[in-house]
């Protein structure tokens, strides 16, 4: 099992961010921002020392939910201050950005890190489209075209132009080119049928984040694997990454108290404005390809309200408790889903930074040594028999 450390870099200086979209930035204290960035980046560097294989940064806009509108800036710092871990950009939100800019900045990160970039291509969550004034209906079309264009920019030895539906470039020749040839490893979300099929078509590793239950996640993994086979390749366990929130403490009660409080702040304080915009996007556009995908998204957001914390732990949707419990929980996820990678989000909402460090230490000293050997791929269908 290999682990990825994702840190949303939330702004924790607000106690009531309200429900308006966008969230007014008058609440942002730049001096506190300076301290938070310093701490959060230090945590990312420390995660490598704790044994994480990938250090993740992601993109969000216009809210205290995350202070990384350009995760590539953070990725560059992490690349410079680490030596071993993969630089996971999970990712740039492809449909709302200039794809050539993504190709260029990712190539820079790959060169600056000596070939450690893991290139995340994300479609983003709905409110990002409001932020950057991109029609949500165009989301899938832009995503598909932009990825082809980015791959071409990375791999074409000759300058080229592009005449597409959403993008037109008459002459492209990026400098630098990536170290990893023909292009870096790609990671994409595969949490809906449409996104799982696209990840398979692109030849990307797949991330299944904020899972609702094992059954539906198994289905998504199978969609991804079946489609990949149709495109002529076989994903391994290493291509399947499951994302879970994680908190480890001396007792389950303490871990629960910390994580539950952090999640409450995350959804209740940081997530209010985002939900307002998401509702608008989901109700008024064709952001999702079909009603099933929209329902699944709603289900994911509703589960935070409708399912108790203990029940989520019981269902295997959180890594929470003592180190020994965390080991069992990680083993269970692997047994159920056959994943070879796991993304752990530890800084949830306003969880105190020293608690984050403590969880990292438990992972390094007790949990990782016990679960490292997991990862030989087991077909979920066979595992279920």
């Amino acid at each position, binding site marked *: 099992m290999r682990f990825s450390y994702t840190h949303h870099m939330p702004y924790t200086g607000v106690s009531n961010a309200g429900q308006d979209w966008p969230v007014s930035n008058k609440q942002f204290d730049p001096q506190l921002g300076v301290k938070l960035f310093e701490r959060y980046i230090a945590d990312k560097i420390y995660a490598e020392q704790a044994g994480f294989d990938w250090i993740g940064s992601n993109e969000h806009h216009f809210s205290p939910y995350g202070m990384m509108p350009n995760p590539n800036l953070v990725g560059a710092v992490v690349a410079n201050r680490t030596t071993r871990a993969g630089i996971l950009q999970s990712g740039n939100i492809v449909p709302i950005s200039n794809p050539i800019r993504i190709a260029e900045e990712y190539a820079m990160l790959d060169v600056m890190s000596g070939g450690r970039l893991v290139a995340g291509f994300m479609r983003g969550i709905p409110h990002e489209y409001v932020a950057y004034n991109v029609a949500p209906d165009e989301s899938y079309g832009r995503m598909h075209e932009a990825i082809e264009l980015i791959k071409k920019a990375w791999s074409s030895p000759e300058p080229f132009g592009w005449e*597409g539906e959403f993008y037109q470039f008459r002459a492209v020749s990026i400098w630098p080119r990536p170290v990893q040839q023909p292009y870096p490893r790609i990671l994409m979300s595969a949490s809906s049928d449409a996104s799982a099929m696209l990840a398979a078509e692109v030849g990307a590793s797949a991330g299944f984040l904020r899972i609702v239950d094992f059954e539906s996640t198994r289905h998504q993994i199978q969609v991804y694997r079946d489609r990949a086979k149709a495109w002529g390749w076989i994903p391994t366990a290493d291509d399947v990454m499951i994302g879970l929130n994680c908190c480890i403490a001396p007792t389950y009660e303490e871990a629960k108290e910390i994580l539950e409080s952090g999640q409450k702040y995350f959804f209740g304080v940081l997530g209010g404005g985002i939900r307002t915009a998401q509702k608008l996007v989901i109700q008024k556009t064709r952001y999702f390809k079909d009603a099933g995908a929209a329902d699944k998204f709603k289900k994911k957001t509703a589960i935070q309200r409708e399912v108790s914390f203990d029940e989520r732990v019981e269902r295997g949707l959180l890594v929470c408790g003592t180190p020994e419990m965390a080991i069992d929980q990680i083993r269970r996820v692997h047994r159920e889903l056959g994943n070879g990678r796991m993304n752990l989000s530890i800084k949830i909402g306003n969880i105190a930074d020293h608690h984050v460090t403590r969880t990292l230490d438990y992972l390094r000293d007790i949990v990782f040594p016990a679960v490292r050997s997991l990862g030989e791929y087991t077909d979920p269908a066979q595992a279920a028999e």
Partner: protein
Amino acid sequence: MFKEKTSKLTKGSIAYFTGGSGRPLIHLHGASGVRPNAGLEALAESVTLYMPVLPGFDGTSGIDGVASMETLADLVADFIDKEIGEAVDVLGLSFGGWLGAWLAVRHPSKVGQLCLENPAGFRPDSMAAPSSDPELRKQQMYAYPDRLPPETKSEDVLAKNRAMLGHYHGKTSFDADLAAQLSKIECLTLIMHGTRDGRVPEEAVQLLKRDIPRSHLIYIYDAAHSLETDQPARFAHLVSDFMERAEAFLVNQGPAGDRPQQVL
């Protein structure tokens, strides 16, 4: 929109179709022969198209002494002399792109600017030949078969058209003689490749871009081998812009770029 005419050339007569409005543009057809379509009709809004029926295609007779890509290029040069009388822009699709490249090598003074659409003739010998399975071939040819105009040619004519390819280039898939001379092409050249083209490999257009000195390679997104029917608007806009503005087509014109501009 296109009228059929006859051109009397030194070695014999050929048919051609012409129509449109604007500066002349020679269109050299692919293996299917002359086939008016939405892309060509859109292009004809800004240029006057001349589309010769190459000897032996579309039910016409061959011409003695015209049995190779080189001699066919000489025949097209004669057509330019007779019908245009000066250097003219040339657009070639697949087999026609191959022929256009020979024309530019052998008769540089006849060619103004050159457009190669998914040009055949440069498939490396190390690569497998394209499939002859009808269903797979269809997928490789057309991203959107429903956009094809209704077929007006008989199976017999289409089969003879395909046979004419061998008449002109034998079983060659990589034209080494021409590849060795690509650096002689002096004219500004646009190479177009459909991102879903299953007939012409990426390596072929990369080679052309590498070896033709003043060339630009542009990918047409979501088009297979038949650019003109898969993405007619993108095809016509790109070709007309390239023809009108030459090297300046690299520069974004803003909203004015949505319509053809006169070169000052």
